[in-house]
């Protein structure tokens, strides 16, 4: 190493950031650990009352969804029933007409 490089080495000696540096880093690490540990359920705004409310709201949505589904099922069933009755009525009328024609043709033959 040349004398100039030695001078450079002396000039670039490490400097200390201060006595409390480690304490400050550790404090930040602890804060960071705590922040990470607090999951969704441990967020400060989510108090026990809020948690109960959130669960209740979830159940309501689920129940509401089931009720709507049942209602839609009923509506479909009623519509199918109406269609079946209409079809039977039409079929009955047609059958009656055929019977009348058969009777008429028998009378003509006699």
């Amino acid at each position: 190493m040349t004398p100039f490089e030695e001078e450079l080495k002396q000039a670039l000696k490490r400097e200390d950031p201060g006595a409390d540096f480690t304490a400050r880093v550790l404090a930040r690490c602890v804060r960071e650990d705590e922040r990470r540990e607090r999951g969704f359920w441990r967020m400060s705004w989510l108090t026990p009352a809020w948690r109960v409310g959130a669960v209740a709201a979830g159940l309501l949505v689920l129940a509401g969804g089931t009720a709507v589904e049942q209602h839609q099922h009923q509506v479909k069933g009623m519509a199918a029933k109406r269609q079946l009755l209409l079809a039977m009525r039409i079929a009955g009328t047609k059958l009656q007409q055929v019977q009348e024609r058969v009777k008429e043709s028998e009378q003509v033959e006699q």
Partner: protein
Amino acid sequence: MLAASSSIATTTAGQSALPAFAVVVETHKAMVYSIAWQFLHDRVAADELAQDVFLQLHKNWARIESPAHLLFWLRKVATHRAIDAARKRQARAETSLEETDEPTVLERVHDAFLASYLKRMVASLPEKQRSVIVLRYQEEMELDEIAKVLGMNVSTVKTQISRALELLRGKVSRRLGRENANDTV
């Protein structure tokens, strides 16, 4: 260093790593802070950057395999973060050596003054040259180690060091020449 190294090796899953981590911070704080300082020349910014590096280390603690890996990791992260920060700040890193102002007061360029002057000159070097000079003369790293940290070839590292030294020598010689001329007047 030995205490820190054995702490890393013995820290197992589920066991708090904070005491071992504290030893590592205490051992390496000067290195990380000084790397940051060489790029930022701002105590508050260098302190903050050094803290960020250790916070990142804390997050990646489980991945550190050995003391050598720890040292490599710290130097690499500190250097890259410092380069990024210096770029963002558009600090002296972007000022060319020739554009750097000479000291305004008449100061004799030797001993403490030379050190101070050299620091200023290193701070004014282009980014790559400054990185290799800091790692070579502050951290006393070998050329191949510098190459690994900076992701360069060894030959590139050599070239950058040689160019940086040439620039610095020229600048200091000119400065000394002017000082001598002023003395004789």
